[in-house]
Structures are given as structure tokens and as C-alpha cells.
């Protein structure tokens, strides 16, 4: 795969934004850690890391790689390349492909494609229900036992709205320490919904998507998880009310975790008044108050993780009228910059916090062995280097993803991912893929 040497000296980097030090990566592990300038470079390629923050390699709980089925939007190769460019070393590939990832065969295929691409570790997510139809459970155990070793199950894109089915799924995955990642969207309350329901949806004449449609499902699922003692993970939390419910559920000691997307940390529903479908996403962009509540919740840990919900779409699915457009935004290559902007530069979270929310906790929720570890001697050498002082204007044309549907086009964002190391080898350097 990589032609770069297996030994790297990262000189003068600041782990988690702390004091500068040297990291020596050898044979896939962090071999030595010492004060800046203390480690010798014999036989190692040296990366001058002056001013760079070193983070444990990022882990995404929520990525749509689109393969199999929608290779016009993204493939495992292009999607994982985008992930590497964005600083990720592992991604969870969502199950809503065609065919749906609801059998051991499909999840193993995705897992194998990920291994062949080699940019990141691909962790397939298995569907909760067969065909995402919400009627009967998929073969969860077979997927767990497969080579892909699935631990996260989700019908993402659709909600497991049947309470009995949701209860059974939560119970069943306890057998192999799995987690149900729920796309919380009450279907009847969101029929043909187009944007956050509020003053703006009324004015723009777009069918409203009420916050309660998300919150009611989260409340029900939290109660179910508490009742059966199972692990529940809530995908892409988007409202202040959801945060309140999560805070309450956690106070009960229930095993509930949640993620927030970068776009819900930065963007709000006023953007919809342009009617530009690049801002059309599920769940929809919410109000500024919701954004603020989500930031606070991520900072205090009520929301555990940032997950991209990277959702590539071909240009024809976005260059059309709002109602006809597809939901979703690409996010892998901008996630860290958006989090720096929304959380770090605003003073809500330090780099240690970013490492926790973008690597440590996602790896723990997904049970991703070897990821989300400390930058310490003997640990696997998954390292992301970011230059927090850099700024860049987002240019969709330069994205490694096959799709261009970024809501940040033309926007100036802080931070730049300078290098990503997977098992001690760079997958990208200066935004350029190494393989």
C-alpha cells in the first residue's frame, strides 16, 4: 500500500493541544514519546510538527459510503479517501445501501472493500430490520459474527418506529454487546416534511418538520433502553428538546449515548430561505437556539460524539427544486474545521475534548478495537495532525469525495488536517492521499 517508510518521527507536535513533544511511530505503534527535540531520527522520516496539534485518529460513527448501489454518489474508495483527508482513521458505513446491509454477505463485502482501499478502517453498520422495512429484524447475530464484526445496528434514513420491534432489537443485541443507533423521526409527524417547523417554514411555504417528531422518539427509546437495560445510541440529535431528554435519560443511569453532526453545530434554518437544496438535510437544520443548545450539550458530554452523517449525492439530486432534492450533505473533509470553529475557537471545548468527542467516545460506542486510544507508548499509531492556525476557503471542486454537496462552499473555516496516520503509516499528507 504505502511507499512511505514504516517509521515516522513527528517532531514538536502538541498532543491534545498540550506541550510540544516528539512522537516516534514504528511498526504500527507509538514507539517512543519524549520532549520536543529529544528523540533521534535515525531511520525515520521526519515530519516537522511545529505548531500542529496531535489527536488520536478520528472515528466517525455515521458515514454513508453509498456502495453498493449508488456508486455515482460515492464508493468505498472515494468515501474512505475523503475520510482520510478529513483526519479519520475509522468510519462506520451506514446500512442504507442497495442492497441494504442487512446480511452477513453485504456487510462483509463493504468491510472487504474498505480493507482493499486501505485509507481507513471501515466498520459496517448492519440494518436493524430486513430491507429497512421496519417489519422484522434482520439477522443481527449473523452480521455480528461475520468478518465485519458488526456492533452498531441502524435503519438510518428511516426510524424504527414500531415500539415492539425497537424493544426487541435493543434486547437482542445485548448478546454480542451491540448498540441500536436510532434515526429518531416519527414518520406520521414528518410526512413530506421539508424543513424545521417554525416561523420560517410557515413563511417559505415548506412543510414543517417539528422538533417533537424527533424528541418523542428519543424519549420513547430512552425509556425502552432503561426498561430493558440495553445500549441505545441516538443518531444526529438536532434539537434543544432532544438534549433535555438525553440529559434526563443519562441522569437515570441508562446506557444512552448520542451524536451531533458538524452541520447542526454550525448552520441554522435561515439558510433555507435561499431555497438552495444544498441546505436540505435530515434531520433539518434547526434554529440558532437549537445550535447553541447542541454546542453546550457536546461540551458538557450530554451529547457524546460528533458524527458526520456524510451523505453524498450526485449533482442532479441537488440542482433542482427544493422538494425534489435529496436530503444530505457531505461532511468528512470539513468536520474537524467545523468543530474547531463551533467548539474550540468559541472556547467551549479544548483539543482534549475534541479528541474525546471525535475519537475516544465514538470508538467506545462502536466497540472499535484499537481506536480512540491515548497518544502513549505502546498504543496503536492512529494519529491526526491538525494545524489550528490555518484557514481555508472550502472549494467543492477539490473534495476527495465523489460528490460536491457541501453546504460550506466558499465559506472560510479554521484549521487544516495536515496528516493522518493509520497504524503508523500516513494515509494522507497535506491533503494528498499517499496510496
Amino acid at each position, binding site marked *: 500500500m504505502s511507499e512511505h517508510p514504516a517509521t515516522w518521527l513527528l517532531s514538536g507536535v502538541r498532543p491534545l493541544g498540550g506541550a510540544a513533544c516528539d512522537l516516534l511511530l514504528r511498526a504500527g505503534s507509538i514507539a517512543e514519546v519524549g520532549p520536543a527535540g529529544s528523540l533521534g531520527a535515525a531511520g525515520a522520516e521526519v515530519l516537522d510538527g511545529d505548531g500542529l496539534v496531535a489527536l488520536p485518529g478520528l472515528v466517525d460513527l455515521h458515514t454513508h459510503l453509498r456502495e453498493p448501489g449508488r456508486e455515482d454518489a460515492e464508493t468505498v474508495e472515494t468515501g474512505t479517501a475523503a475520510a482520510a483527508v478529513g483526519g479519520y482513521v475509522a468510519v462506520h458505513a451506514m446500512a442504507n445501501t442497495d442492497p441494504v446491509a442487512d446480511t452477513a454477505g453485504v456487510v462483509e463485502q463493504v468491510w472487504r472493500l474498505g480493507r482493499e482501499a486501505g485509507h481507513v478502517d471501515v466498520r459496517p453498520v448492519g440494518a436493524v430490520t430486513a430491507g429497512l422495512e421496519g417489519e422484522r429484524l434482520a439477522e443481527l447475530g449473523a452480521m455480528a459474527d461475520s468478518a465485519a464484526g458488526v456492533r452498531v445496528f441502524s435503519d438510518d434514513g428511516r426510524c424504527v418506529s414500531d415500539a415492539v420491534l425497537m424493544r426487541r432489537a435493543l434486547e437482542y443485541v445485548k448478546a454480542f454487546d451491540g448498540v441500536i443507533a436510532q434515526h429518531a423521526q416519527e414518520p406520521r409527524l414528518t410526512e413530506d416534511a421539508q424543513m424545521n417547523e417554525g416561523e420560517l417554514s*410557515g413563511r417559505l411555504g415548506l412543510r414543517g418538520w417539528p422538533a417533537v417528531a424527533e424528541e418523542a422518539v428519543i424519549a420513547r427509546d430512552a425509556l425502552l433502553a432503561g426498561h430493558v437495560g440495553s445500549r441505545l445510541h441516538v443518531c444526529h440529535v438536532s434539537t434543544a428538546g432532544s438534549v433535555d431528554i438525553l440529559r434526563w435519560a443519562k441522569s437515570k443511569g441508562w446506557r444512552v449515548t448520542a451524536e451531533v453532526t458538524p452541520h447542526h453545530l454550525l448552520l441554522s434554518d435561515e439558510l433555507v430561505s435561499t*431555497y438552495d437544496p444544498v441546505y436540505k438535510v435530515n434531520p433539518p437544520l434547526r434554529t440558532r437556539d437549537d445550535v447553541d443548545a447542541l454546542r453546550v450539550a457536546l461540551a458538557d458530554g450530554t451529547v457524546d460524539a460528533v458524527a458526520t452523517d456524510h451523505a453524498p449525492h450526485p449533482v442532479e439530486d441537488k440542482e433542482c*427544486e427544493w422538494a425534489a432534492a435529496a436530503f444530505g450533505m457531505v461532511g468528512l473533509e470539513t468536520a474537524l474545521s467545523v468543530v474547531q470553529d463551533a467548539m474550540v475557537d468559541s472556547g467551549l471545548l479544548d483539543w482534549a475534548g475534541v479528541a474525546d468527542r471525535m475519537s475516544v467516545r465514538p470508538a467506545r460506542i462502536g466497540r472499535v478495537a484499537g481506536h480512540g486510544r491515548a497518544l502513549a507508548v505502546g498504543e496503536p499509531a492512529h494519529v491526526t495532525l491538525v494545524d489550528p492556525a490555518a484557514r481555508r476557503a472550502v472549494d467543492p471542486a477539490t473534495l476527495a469525495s465523489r460528490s460536491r454537496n457541501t453546504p460550506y462552499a466558499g465559506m472560510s473555516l479554521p484549521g487544516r488536517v495536515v496528516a493522518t496516520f493509520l497504524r503508523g503509516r500516513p494515509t494522507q499528507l497535506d491533503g494528498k492521499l499517499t496510496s
Partner: protein
Amino acid sequence: MKRHLLSAADLSRDDALLVLDTAEELARVSDRAVKKLPTLRGRTVVNLFFEDSTRTRISFEAAAKRLSADVINFSAKGSSLSKGESLKDTALTLEAMGADAVVVRHSASGAPHRLATSGWIGGSVVNAGDGTHEHPTQALLDAFTMRRHLGPLTDRRVIIVGDVLHSRVARSNVLLLHTLGAEVTLVAPPTLLPVGVETWPCAAAYDLDSVLPKADAVMMLRVQRERMGAAYFPSVREYSRRYGLHAGRLGVLPEHALILHPGPMNRGLEITAEAADGARSVIVEQVANGVSVRMAVLYLLLGGSEPG
């Protein structure tokens, strides 16, 4: 005037009055033997209708032809939502044909906005009704009709009754009438008022009978058949009783008050024949005035140099 007419909110008070005054002059042209003006000779107006509306299309077509514009009718019904790119493809086709103005009717809210801002076409875009968003020329013809009978609309009380939630006519009327200084009250069952209506520049009420006695004009909105099974109200009979304009309510309505309806009417549902055909009804005038108002809009958008 702005380059496009997408929303009634695009019109300042001066713009709105200019349209209405211009329409007033143009209405006189419609009264003479030769109804044609040479003003837009050599310019091309495309009626791009993604949704059936013979009335509105004919009205725009007559307006453009009376101004001597070349008119191309482009009916793209059914082809838009099934295949998303067709809006763009259609726009590029129109651009290649040299359309100076595109009058667009679409079932998707914001589609005219999209055409105007996407850079796909260079001409002016006129919103002829988009989804449940706006229908600014309907609001202009309603204001024109009311002004002819009531004089300046400042401080006049206008009541708009019915399915406000799904009504582009109501949205545009609220914005335009507010700009013109009128006091608008929306009346509907709570299920048919949009979330956030309290932030609109108008009042809202649930009880029609309490607001009718002070009205200078009452505009009845059409109740779409597809709302009937969707629990917005229990039954047609109950809706008619609580929100229909019928004989009993005509007695409460002031003598000078006007009755409007954007059409097509559900006679016997939101309005009885007695109300629709009575002396206070200006529903037929609304249709005739539509041509004058649309002539004014096309003239003001296309008659001069390109707006800066």
C-alpha cells in the same frame, strides 16, 4: 422594482403603488377597440407551467400579447418532481431560446426563486404561484380590485378566511396588503393556520363571526379536496358552518364590504352562490383585473432598461 417578482415582499410601497397605478392606466387600454400596445415588441415571454392553471396562464398570455411580446407556452407538468434535473434543463432550454421573462408556475415552493438565483437563466422571473409559498400577481390583482372600490387601502380591514396553511394567495396578500397599509386578519381553524403566524404582519382569529362586522373586504380561500381526509377539520359540513360565507353571515357583513375569491370556488363549501353572485361580490372583476395587473408587471419588469 427588482429584477424579478418572486414574492409580494419584493415590492416596496412605492413599487406596489406604481404597479397598481400603471395597471389602472392599462385597464383603460382594455376598454378601447384596439387593445394592443407596441411596448414589448420583440421581447419574449415564456409561460412555464409545471402545474395546471389555465386561468393564470391565459391571463399572463393575454397580458403579454397585449403588450406585443412574443409568447411561448411551455407546459412541463409532471416532468419536474419525477426527475429532478428537468427544472435546470428546462431553464437552460429557455435561456437558449432567449426568454426575456419567464412566468413560472410550480407545485414546489421556491422553484421560481431557484430559477432566479441559480444563474441558469438571465431573464426576469415572475412567480405565477409556487407550491404553498406565494402568488404575488394574485395579491396585486386583489389589491387592485379592492382599491377600485374602496379607494386607498390604508387602514382598510381585510379578512382572509380559510386554508391559510396551504395558501400561497394568503401569504402574498398578507405581505402586500401590509405594505399598502391595510389591516389584515386571517381567520381559520387552528389546524389551518401556519406555525409562527403570530409573527406575520397581520392578526389571526378562529371565529369568523366576531370579525365580519368590521370588514371592508372578505376574501374566501378555496378548501382543497385533499385536505378533507387529513384531519384538518372533522367534516365538510362543520367547516362550512364555522368558516363558510353563507346567507346568515352576509347579513353581518357591512353593506360596502367586498367579497373576493381567488377561484376556482367550491360553491356550497367555503362560499354559497348567494355570496359569490351577490352585489358585493367582485369575483368576476378579479379575473378581468388580472390581465391589467399582469400587463403592468410585465411592462415594469421588461419595458425599461435592465434593472441594475
